């Protein structure tokens, strides 16, 4: 193991802010199991840009991996995740406050892949970006930004560094952790292709420094075998919540602080989620597009917390049944992690490319701190990784009856990354994230009006 040491690099800079959260990651040892379902409801919007449009019709027979949603270059392609018959194409609720066109497919139980599936021929940057597009990739860490768009801008900006984000600082979630163990081969294949065709000069795999992490020997050995082993490094960071946020990660690994509005390509780098990398590595080998993903199912109300691989569009209810159902009456059901995930009111929602966790909390865990007045302790500002003052923004966005846009701009409300550190620490139990979200959107809207819409996040800004 004398060479293994050279693989590890130290972070170059410390991050201010953030919080120490009990990580509750009980599913480290759970090797993801696949589940198959009788029916999938596949939303045509699983990424953060425009929704795709359906290119199949009700009654059509589809095979697994068949393209069913497409709307050109601005979206991520959507593929059938089971083989069977399309029974419904209609607008459905995919989250408590979100609707999208969904394609419902009744499975024929055969789980047959489309016959024409073949590994892509990648010869240059263009064909690589095409391959990413055909794989239907969107950031699987939670942002859901179509990967081919990101890759193209990075290629044009001639970025030098590729960062594989395996930090996963959200408690409970162990998806990326498992990916490093179970799909190391796919991850490195993806990295090799990106080095070869996009021209990255250095690859940093960032992960949390956890004692439990002894078993990625396979990943390390795979790196050793790679023709690019000299430029692929692993950086382990001290566990602290919000380290995995893109800007924080770039600061820790490269020492560059990207202000609000700047992209990783401005720091000559690209940040890619581990699961996304693994999915692309798999596509390069097999030609199978992204039709399923690993999800951590956990929380105090879940009987047997586990990692599972679910077809996209599988309903939460099916997944919870697969892990043995509820152990206690759930008082909160969360899609994503407990810090940034969204609470949902039913198990009828489908999982998407960005669903990394399904958490169910029993009564005790779901209890909310009673909200009292702000005592101006300043803890929210202390833990804010973006160095803004959440309590002031919350007041400007909610307290005055009419939100004060100028004040929100002066307070840099738009810099908020919604990491929830402030509301986590707040002793008064104030739902700061609500105010920050409103403030952020108001500023974005005001800026779009003032300086012409730059086209970013048009859909999400509905106020």
């Amino acid at each position: 193991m004398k060479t293994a040491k050279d693989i590890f690099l130290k972070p170059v800079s410390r991050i201010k802010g953030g919080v120490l959260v009990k990580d509750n990651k009980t599913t480290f040892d759970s090797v993801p199991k696949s589940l198959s379902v009788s029916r999938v409801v596949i939303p045509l919007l699983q990424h953060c840009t425009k929704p795709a449009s359906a290119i199949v019709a009700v009654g059509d027979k589809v095979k697994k991996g068949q393209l069913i949603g497409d709307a050109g270059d601005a979206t991520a392609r959507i593929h059938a995740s089971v083989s069977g018959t399309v029974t419904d194409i209609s607008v459905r609720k995919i989250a408590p406050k979100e609707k999208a066109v969904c394609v419902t497919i009744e499975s024929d139980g055969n789980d047959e892949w489309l016959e024409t599936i073949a590994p892509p021929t990648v010869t240059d940057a263009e064909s690589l970006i095409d391959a990413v597009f055909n794989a239907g990739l969107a950031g699987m860490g939670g942002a859901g930004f179509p990967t081919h768009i990101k890759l193209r801008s990075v290629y044009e900006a001639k970025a030098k560094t590729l960062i594989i984000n395996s930090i996963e600082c959200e408690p409970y979630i162990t998806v990326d952790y498992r990916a490093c163990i179970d799909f190391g081969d796919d991850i490195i294949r993806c990295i090799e292709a990106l080095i070869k065709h996009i021209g990255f000069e250095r690859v940093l795999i960032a992960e949390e420094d956890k004692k439990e992490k002894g078993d990625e020997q396979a990943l390390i050995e795979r790196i050793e075998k790679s023709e690019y082993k000299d430029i692929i490094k692993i950086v382990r960071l001290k566990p602290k919540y919000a380290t995995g946020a893109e800007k924080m990660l770039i600061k820790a690994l490269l020492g560059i602080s990207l202000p609000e509005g700047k992209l990783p390509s401005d720091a000559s780098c690209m940040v890619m989620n581990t699961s996304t990398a693994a999915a692309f590595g798999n596509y390069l080998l097999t030609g199978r597009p992204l039709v399923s993903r690993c999800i951590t199912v956990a929380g105090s109300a879940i009987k047997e917390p586990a990692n599972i691989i679910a077809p996209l569009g599988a309903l939460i209810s099916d997944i919870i049944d697969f892990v043995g159902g509820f152990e206690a009456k759930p008082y909160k059901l969360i899609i994503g992690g407990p810090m940034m995930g969204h609470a949902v009111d039913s198990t009828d929602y489908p999982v998407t490319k960005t669903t990394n966790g399904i958490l169910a909390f029993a009564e005790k865990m779901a209890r909310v701190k009673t909200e009292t007045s702000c005592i101006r302790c300043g803890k929210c500002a202390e833990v804010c990784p973006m160095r803004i003052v959440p309590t002031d923004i919350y007041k400007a966005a909610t307290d005055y009856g009419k939100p004060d846009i100028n004040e929100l701009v002066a307070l840099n409300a738009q810099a908020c990354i919604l990491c929830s550190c402030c509301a986590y620490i707040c002793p008064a139990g104030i739902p700061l994230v609500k105010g920050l979200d409103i403030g952020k959107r108001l500023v974005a809207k005001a800026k779009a009006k003032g300086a012409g819409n730059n086209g970013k996040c048009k859909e999400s800004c509905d106020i």
Partner: protein
Amino acid sequence: MENAKNPAISEDKSANSVQDNNKDNLSELKLTVSPHIKSSLTTKGVMLDVIIALIPTLAAGAWIQGPRAFLIAFTGVLSSVLAEYLYNRFMKKPNTIGDLSAAVTGMLIALNMPVTIPLWMVVVGSVFAIVIVKQLFGGLGRNFANPALTARIFMLLSFPAAMNNFVMPFQWKSSSEIVTTATPLYTLYEAFKSGSPDSFLTAAKDFPSLTSLFLGQMQGTIGEISALALLLGFIYLLYRGVIRLSIPVSFVGTVAVVMLIAGKGSLNFVAGQILSGGLLLGAIFMATDYTTSPMSIKGKIIFGIGCGLITCFIRLFGSLHEGVSYAILIMNIFSPFIDRLTRPRPFGQTKKGGKAHAKA
């Protein structure tokens, strides 16, 4: 990511019954905004920490000045909590005594009184602090001045004789009459006026030794005398992360520097200024009040330096010999402006307010 083997889900009856159960189960699902887990930190917990941190000070006060200190503390806490309860009740507002902030105020008022104070005055002070200074401004978090401190100033102006009726250390234990001497702060004032503080202090027979000053064997209010007890509370608050070093250190540090100059290098003079009077009590427990002090570290340092300078000016040139309360009250007024001036620079932005160039 794809896995070739797909074990089919069991479709036996147990699976179905689980699903039926789920439907009933889901009636209680709450939709709340993220995060879905919270730290164990609460306002009540913070206040409780402050109360715990004040216990050594109260104990030292009672040891040196007599057990009546406990009675005063009890009266202060009870009347403050009751005042808040009755005010909320009368104004039909939610009951807020559970956050323990009224108890902290009552405790601080008591510690700012001489041990001889008539109890009814303590009640008047507590009601003034809670109703006028705190609740009328909207309650916890909305008052611009520290309630306990403003009550102390109000009482100093209303009952000057009772508020300055100090006892000698351990007078309560002794049966014989003890001659009351000048307070240490008065001696220090005379020392400054004399032009040669160091020789004046050495000559002053009734000026307490450094050890006495540190342990609290001197005249003063219940809570201000024992530097040792106050420092114990300070360490506890630091350890619990309730307060930071910034305000106490910049406050006391400024006083030390100014007094070193004013005392012409006399270390006795500096130590006397720091250890006597309400400086440590004020710097550790009153100036650090969250609501009435700035939020950022830079702001806190400016606040502390301001408090220190005003304290020195009042002590050296004013008609009063003690200025800590007034200094903090004046800086309380500046707090919102200091906050505005010292907003943290957002992540990645450069000094001029422009965006940092990010090219590596």
